[in-house]
């Protein structure tokens, strides 16, 4: 059970790092709207995955897990949004904060089942794949 949790956590951080490198090379091609969407999806998805997985591993430390998930969401949202603009930074920041506050509650309500965590990671993976596709097909007007 523990191996699944740490494996999924490492997987999602690797995914975020690969996406950041991919986006950083072509950040001049990305417009304002797509930048806002990218910041929202990256911050929210990383906060959601981190909160759900960490509350599975440490069920008795609710407050600490909430703080860590919110900080992760804020940091990742600010990093992804800071590539483009000031406003996209703000969007990613607030989206990561809100989702990080909510995520450990979802994990506690799911009664610690591993298939739910795998499905959540699948959802985050699908979001990042759509992000890749939207970036490849975008032309700045």
């Amino acid at each position, binding site marked *: 059970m523990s191996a699944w949790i740490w494996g999924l956590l490492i997987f999602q951080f690797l995914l975020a790092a690969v996406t950041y490198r991919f986006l950083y090379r072509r950040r001049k091609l990305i417009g304002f709207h797509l930048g806002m*969407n990218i910041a929202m999806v990256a911050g929210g998805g990383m906060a959601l995955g981190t909160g759900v997985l960490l509350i599975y591993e440490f069920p008795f430390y609710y407050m600490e897990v909430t703080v860590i998930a919110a900080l992760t969401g804020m940091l990742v949202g600010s990093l992804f949004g800071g590539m483009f603009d000031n406003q996209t930074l703000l969007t990613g920041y607030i989206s990561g904060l809100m989702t990080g506050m909510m995520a450990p*509650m979802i994990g506690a*309500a799911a009664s610690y089942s591993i298939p739910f965590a795998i499905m959540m990671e699948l959802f985050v993976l699908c979001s990042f794949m759509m992000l890749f596709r*939207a970036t490849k097909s975008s032309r700045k007007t």
Partner: protein
Amino acid sequence: MILFGLFLLVLSSLLGVYMYALFYKSRYRISDSLSFTVTLAAGQITSFVIAITLYLVFPIDFTVICTVNLWIGIVIGTQFSSVTRKQSLLAGFFNGGVAAVMGTMVGAVTIDPTLCGLPESTLTLQNTGIAVGIFGLLLLCATTLLVRFSLIKH
């Protein structure tokens, strides 16, 4: 309880379809940022209310219901966001899914408040379910009115 839940489900689906028709009819004469805002508001609130009501109707297993709700929310968000341009597809996909998961969580905490460490509710199960269902429906009605106002005024 089941009959009341199905009634709420039909009513909220009709409100969502009405919002979609209104948005589709005025898709050529609204600006980009207004369409983005309408996409987020309408997709999130519709998937949220439908997820609450589905958990109140079928309170069997959290994981199964959450999976079903997640895909329903993704479909609703994608539908709303693919009306105008393909650029906000990403935001509709992600926010519809997250709103559906949060709605399922609200339904689960309503049925059993001891999940989150809260004390037992003094009301019975029927009263709590009916109150939360009516609250969700009122929320959806208020959002529909606001979306209609902003789309017609523009």
